[in-house]
């Protein structure tokens, strides 16, 4: 197991942000952590790569309890694309190549040429989209076994977004690297994820393989009778149920996520 998180808890002062997160990621998987803003995705990732100390629970990376020596095998792209002041692209390449023993200059150069990075320019002056691409280039060239990408396609135009998704997918499939993604872009995640966890209010409410999740859920109309099925939540005028019975219709990945996140309570502001 590449990542194993068990009953992870995190408090900020008296406020509990993570309330018993558990999930597992196998080697070569692209695991997506999906949830609304403020659900605890970024906090979970920060605990996994050791930026935050958990209040409770257990984190294992590469089958051993998390320790800071393992960080050489983990490459991180942060959510806000924060960068060091006055650092040029070249400075970043220098420090990443010093810190990652498996750094691959050729991969970075391929990105640099394709996306026309100006390595003499300060990274803080790059556009937000360019910073995202630059971070993606750094993480892929790091040679790390586990990539943690927080909102990797945010701020990218549709063409580059599609290209980046393909690169992420190829990287995991061809290089057998594990990628942990946090995002709320449900459409994109379906394209590349092998498994996913839905996070809501600091808890993983559902975790599964994408194909198995689709096979084990059905969408039925509101007046349809169901038995031996677990009602998950509303998706528009339909109800998402977890069942193996051949009823209703198969849901899309997006509908499964909406069903779990929306739950059984409908929001009716005009009633």
């Amino acid at each position: 197991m590449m990542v194993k998180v068990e009953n992870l808890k995190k408090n900020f002062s008296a406020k509990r942000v993570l309330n018993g997160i558990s999930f597992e990621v196998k080697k070569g998987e692209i695991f997506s952590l999906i949830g609304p803003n403020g659900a605890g995705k970024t906090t979970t990732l920060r605990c996994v790569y050791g930026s935050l100390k958990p209040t409770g629970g257990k984190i294992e990376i590469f089958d051993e309890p998390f320790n800071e020596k393992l960080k050489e095998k983990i490459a991180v792209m942060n959510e806000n694309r924060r960068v060091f002041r006055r650092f040029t692209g070249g400075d970043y390449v220098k420090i990443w190549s010093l810190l990652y023993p498996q750094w691959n200059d050729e991969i970075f150069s391929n990105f640099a040429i394709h996306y026309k990075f100006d390595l003499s320019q300060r990274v803080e002056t790059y556009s937000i989209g360019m910073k995202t691409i630059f971070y993606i280039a750094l993480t892929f060239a790091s040679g790390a076994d586990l990539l943690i990408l927080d909102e990797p396609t945010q701020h990218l135009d549709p063409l580059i977004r599609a290209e980046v998704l393909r690169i992420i997918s190829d990287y995991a499939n061809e290089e057998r690297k594990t990628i942990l993604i946090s995002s709320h872009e449900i459409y994109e995640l379906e394209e590349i994820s092998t498994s996913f966890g839905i996070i809501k209010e600091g808890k993983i409410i559902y975790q599964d393989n994408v194909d198995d999740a689709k096979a084990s859920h059905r969408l039925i109309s509101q007046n349809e009778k169901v038995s031996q099925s677990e009602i998950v939540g509303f998706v528009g005028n339909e109800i998402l149920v977890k069942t193996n019975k051949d009823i209703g219709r198969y849901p899309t990945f997006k509908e499964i996520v909406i069903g779990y996140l929306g739950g059984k309570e409908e929001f009716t502001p005009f009633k």
Partner: protein
Amino acid sequence: MNKVEVYFIKTLKERAGLLLILTLLLLIPNFSWRIFFIFLMITLVLLPRDMCNGKFNIMMELPLSRKDVFWSSYVFLLVFSIFPQMIGYSFESIFITPSPWSIGYGLLSTLTFSTAYFGIAVLSASFGFGNFGVPFLVLIADAFLGSIRWYGLNPYRMISPIYQENITVALIFALSLLMISYFIFERKGKIK
């Protein structure tokens, strides 16, 4: 070694201007001025500042541990506080020849002050009290408490990082502050 180098590259790049000015000012062969400029370096250039402006979080995204960052920052402080002083001594020796004892004592005083206030500033930042305000109040309180004398006596002056009346005791006190700050920093880090 790479990790220390990365910290040096990062700090030299980000704070080049301020660092250059402070290094030049640290050439002034006067202890009071020197400790003030070292105080500015600790609070405005090094780890306590990184903990408060989010740069520490960026470092934590890299393969650096809290231990690496803490000790690299401390080594940086020692290099940039003691080297200018040594250069200052070599200039001074053109006009007067300082005794090896006075040079050694001077360097030890700088080490004691730097160590104590690095610990204080890291503690302040770890508990969310900021990198400058609280350490500055401590500096003022240190100066004030050390200046009071009761019948010619003031035990606090012995351990005071500013007055260092007993250099050995003051150094032990400074090292204790450094170790306490390290353990709290290791356990707590920055909670932001």
